[in-house]
């Protein structure tokens, strides 16, 4: 019920904004998002964190009974944490935009709130159609935010953003539809319940799963974005208004990784095991490639946008390592990236409001001009670099550990199921690790230009009419929760790890129960595909092997435990 409130409250407030005078729009929006935060806290408090499965805080009502469609929402720890992130970023975006948005305020705040509802809907949907509707509906508010409130090249950016991600999602829909159809074939009735469809999908053979995985990845990889399909992101980020960028980096990208976590892994486990090394290669290319591109940017917003591509590469790498450490790291990455990169976009927005430029060539050395801003900037840069003690490190190192761990360590003490990457695990970790060096290079390069060095301001610069030279109390208030979040997340992440432990371990167990312990998977990939090892996978499920490696025993133990 509380989840329903979290969806409905922003919608109601959006309605109120439409029917109230323009001057009140921002206050209604702020109020609405703060009320959401209150209910978000209620949801967190009401939640039983030791439990896996997406069956808490549920609310179900029939929708289209003929098709088995339900309005069915609920949460597990992972989705609830992402909902919490979404809701936390709500007031931050609203209050952060008070001075930035002066025209069409009603449109802006109303769509911002609607966007929040849609995002919460994505994370708590238990019905596939509901998920998909919310997933696609996020595009419309974002499209409007970019197209109406963006910078100079906003039309192209918004169109590209919409069409690109929409095309991907439509292919994902085809994958979903295929699974649903198979379900109706198997069981004789239509259902879009995610858990039920997951069972069906796992029963498909390997080549069917491969197609499902391909279709789902087409939708989610674009959203993440994974390496070759990332080009919409820098454009959209650069052109979006500050609040849009924060939401985009903070939550919308996570729809992709959440989709991979929630659908790709449990729906197509056999295919995931087969294709994980390929996905990992794409992720690593993304990490290094996007990182290096960051280095040569002059527009700092574009730099941070590309850094998202690089960072999300770690997230995907952890997911496709499919072991507890990697997937937990990845889930934590989804949240942590929302804090640090969201905050960086806010910082850039604050600078932009004052100088009306984001070019490192025009503005530099703000350290003495805006000491408070600079302090926050260095802080969030360090969070983004992955400095231990701050949020970025916790998730990044866990993704790397997970990657490393899914190497050829059969029988070693520190290793339980899953040599997902085979011999390549440590190599992947090492290459991805160079991303940490590259991150230091480009982020410190940016800091060195913008914060340190001799002060330079644009020629036609004159003081902002409303804003002080340095940050105002409102702006500091917006940044402080994020900074505190980064710090707490970095120093005391153990509760979060414990919270996501149960659902993550379940997901890992789904996949690894099919792992035959064949550490050379990637080497024999082509051969394996000509075989009918799909049937192997099915046979493995639930069987006991006495003659297999220790690894299998681990996995069997584990899947027994997870349920």
């Amino acid at each position, binding site marked *: 019920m509380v989840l329903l409130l979290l969806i409905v409250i922003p919608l109601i407030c959006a309605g109120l904004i439409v029917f109230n005078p323009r001057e009140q729009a921002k206050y209604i929006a702020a109020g609405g998002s703060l009320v959401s935060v209150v209910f978000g806290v209620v949801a967190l408090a009401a939640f039983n964190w030791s439990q896996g499965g997406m069956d808490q805080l549920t609310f179900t009502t029939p929708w289209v009974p003929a098709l088995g469609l339900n309005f069915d929402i609920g949460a597990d720890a992972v989705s609830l944490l992402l909902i919490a992130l979404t809701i936390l970023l709500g007031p931050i975006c609203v209050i952060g935009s008070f001075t930035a948005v002066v025209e069409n305020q009603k449109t802006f705040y109303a769509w911002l709130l609607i966007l929040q509802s849609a995002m919460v809907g994505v994370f708590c949907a238990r019905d596939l159609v509901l998920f998909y509707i919310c997933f696609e509906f996020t595009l419309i508010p974002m499209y409007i935010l970019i197209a109406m409130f963006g910078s100079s090249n906003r039309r192209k950016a918004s169109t590209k953003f919409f*069409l*690109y991600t929409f095309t991907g999602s439509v292919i994902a829909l085809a994958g979903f539809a295929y699974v649903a159809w198979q379900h109706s074939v198997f069981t004789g009735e239509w259902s879009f319940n995610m858990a039920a469809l997951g069972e069906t999908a796992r029963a498909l053979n390997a080549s069917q799963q491969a197609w499902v995985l391909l279709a789902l990845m087409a939708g989610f990889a674009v959203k993440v974005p994974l390496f*070759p*399909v990332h*080009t919409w992101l820098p454009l959209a980020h650069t052109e979006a208004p500050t609040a849009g960028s924060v939401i985009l980096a903070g939550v919308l990208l996570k729809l992709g990784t959440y989709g991979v976590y929630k659908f790709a892994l449990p729906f197509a486990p056999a295919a995931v095991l087969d294709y994980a090394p390929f996905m990992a290669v794409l992720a690593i290319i993304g990490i290094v*490639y996007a990182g*290096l*591109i960051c*280095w*040569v*940017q002059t527009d700092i917003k574009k730099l941070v946008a590309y850094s998202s591509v690089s960072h999300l590469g770690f997230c995907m790498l952890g997911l496709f390592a499919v*072991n*507890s*450490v990697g997937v937990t790291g990845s889930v934590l990455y989804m949240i942590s990236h929302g804090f640090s990169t969201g905050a960086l976009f806010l910082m850039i927005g604050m600078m932009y409001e004052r100088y009306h430029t984001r070019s490192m060539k025009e503005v530099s*050395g703000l*350290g003495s001009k805006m000491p408070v801003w600079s302090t926050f900037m260095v802080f969030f840069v360090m969070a983004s670099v992955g*400095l*231990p003690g701050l949020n970025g*490190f*916790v998730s990044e*190192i*866990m993704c*790397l*550990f997970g990657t*490393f*761990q899914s*190497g050829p*360590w059969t029988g*070693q*003490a*520190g*290793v*339980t199921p899953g040599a997902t990457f085979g011999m390549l695990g*440590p190599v992947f*970790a*090492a290459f991805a*690790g*160079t991303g*940490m*060096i590259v991150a*230091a*290079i480009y982020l*410190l*390069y940016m800091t*060195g230009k913008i*914060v*340190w*060095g*001799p002060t330079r301001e644009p020629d036609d610069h004159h003081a902002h009419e409303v804003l002080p030279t340095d940050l105002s109390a409102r702006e500091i208030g917006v940044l402080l929760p994020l900074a505190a979040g980064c710090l707490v997340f970095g120093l*005391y992440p*153990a509760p979060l*790890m*414990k919270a996501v*432990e149960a659902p993550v*371990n379940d997901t*890992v167990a789904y996949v690894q129960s099919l792992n035959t312990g064949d550490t050379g998977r990637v080497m024999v990939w082509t051969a394996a595909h000509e075989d009918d090892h799909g049937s192997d996978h099915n046979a493995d499920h639930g069987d006991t092997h006495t003659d297999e490696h220790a690894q299998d025993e*681990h996995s069997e*133990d*584990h899947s027994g*435990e997870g349920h």
Partner: protein
Amino acid sequence: MTSISPTLASMADTALHVGSAPAWVLAIPLLPMLAVVLNTFSAIFRVKTKLPAWITIACLAGSFLATAFAFMTLSGQTNVATGWKWFDLSWGAGQGQQFIADFGFYIDNLTLLWMLFVTGLATLIAVYASEYMEHDVGKGYTRFFVAFGLFVFSMTCLVMGDNMLMLYLGWEGVGLCSYLLIGYFYKKPAAVAAAKKAFIVNRIGDLGLAIGVMLTFVHFGTLEYAQLFQSEQLAGYIAAVLEGRAGDVPLMAQLIAVFLMIGAFGKSAQFPLYVWLPDAMEGPTPVSALIHAATMVTAGVYLIARMLPVFLLSEWALPVVAWVGTFTALLAATIGMAQFDIKRIMAYSTVSQLGYMFAGIAMLSSVGGVYHVVTHAFFKALLFLCCGAVMHGFAGQLDLRKLSGLWHMKGWRVVSVGMLVGCLNLAGVPFTAGFFSKDMIIAEAFVTPGYGYSLLGWTLLFTAGLTAYYTFRVFFRVFTGPVQYEPGDEHHGEDDHSHDHAQDDAHGHDGHSHEDHAHGHDHFHPHPPRFAINFVLATLSVLAVLAAGLYFVSPEKHGWVGDMLEESTAHNLYTADHSAAAMFLIDGDAHAAHDTHADAAHGEHAAHGSILGFNPHEVMYYISAIFGLTGIGLAAYLHGPRGMVSGFLGNRVEAGKCRMDAVAKAFDPIPRWAENKWYVDEFYHFLFVRPLWVVSYIFQTIDKLLVDGLVNLFGYLPRLLGRGAQPGQSGVLHGYALSMAGGVGVILFIVVLVTL
């Protein structure tokens, strides 16, 4: 304390008893953190007094006292104090099915040893900095002390952390503080570049460390020292190595040490990752003294000492460390000889001395390396602080060609004496602390079997001579001879007041006014240091002298440091007998020493170790003294002032001219190349930075043209289709109507055809 029981079997299973430490030891890390928090509030409330300095000094002194108390009550034991759970994840109940790292602290003799000099020196240097940084009161003063406190906190995490992720936390934390403090004068592009370089080069090492940590985790299934060093797996490996079955240790376990070593090279500025340290001298001098000479840069030595059991598993790690250390020592010494900036000379000497430490810890006795860490911490901090005092007093002047005769100037005597004490130590003049610690390392080189170690020994001896030369070059040029000086360029030096003259003047500098600087050189009066700086220099001088005494504490265990290490992981099991062997040389009581080790292994080692047919430990005192004194003599001849103690040495009558000029001319390009650091920076730039930059541009172009181009192509296809159909759209109303009617007609026609 137990005495050494050097049979191989008993060494292999030295049981480690880990207790839990009393809660008050958490004060050691938390007090520096408290200083950070309080100073952050000072920053928020824009405190314009010296309050931040006093807060920091008080907290660090408290931390030092807590360490000292811990030393008195807990030394000889191994304890763990857990703060809270940091990483906590499990996916099963079995061994290695947890990923756990506590925010906890591991206290044994090794950490206590390190923490004693870290907190002690940090307190002293904070006192020094309270005066040194006073021109920035109300501006960067608070920022300085926030980073300073944070550094000490990070250092405690690094040294005391009870698992490898805590070590990593401290490792990168000190890197951050180093970054912030090198870039303290953030208006200077050089400082910004140096800060960035330090962080990035360190990150390269950090990647090695991270991989080492990951390997440790997958191999031993734990990250916690207590579990790691108690694990039977590790004990089994060590037993295998001690019994000569090194091949039984899996490759992956051997690789751990190799990767950790890369991390150590980065943090401790060893070749090829040493390039950041000399540039790091752009930071304020107290920072150079504390972080870049005494404490942070020794973290690599700490890492190896802490993980020594793991390093012993690898056949290559320690030899590589020894070779790299020696090479770095030589390389940095040759560069240091040709520099003119005294702080830079000290920086290169730090790199060089770190090379000694690495060589030392990689040799059979870890004691020599660690002892050198301790002695070096004191005398190098002293040297840096003296250089800082000079720099402070002469408006940023650091060029030894423009300073002369400070000994004879009023108010500079404490600095001069401090400098002399530091130089004597660094040059390894007999009976100084530096002499003993360096000898221990060099002698070990001749004793350690295999891998051409005696070549390393000779190289280190030669380098010791070079060290003595460049050290006293500075002393003779700057502190002796005629009184001559030129003030530094304010804009260049770190005493950079130019960025805010108005505010500077408003503060009013009691005792010595900075307005003088503005009037040019004619009216320049150097301002000698006042009480705080002199006090710290005097204290450090005394401590640097006293550090020699540590050598004579519990001599049967190779000095106090050996005594401390014996109860820690840095105790080199492989050669426990051997380190004791060196000991009898000190008191000449060979008989007593022989009693403590009566195993065959000793004989074997002794057979390997000889220098020109003598026992290295016996003759090293004389040989190294000869090298050191020769270096000093050479320095005196080439740089000494006219009329020094013995009339024939030196003929320098003005600051900028000496005999060395002719020598440098004779060897022309070589000194210039050395002055330009053998062009290593340029080489790196050419080999790594530039290509990476080019690759980045290529990637950007690919991204724009190819990756995005393909996307745009797909977006363009429908449009292309539309272009094809475009001519059909005339825009004329009647045209549309006709075509519609025609269309209906065609449909009707078809319908009729079909129905008929």
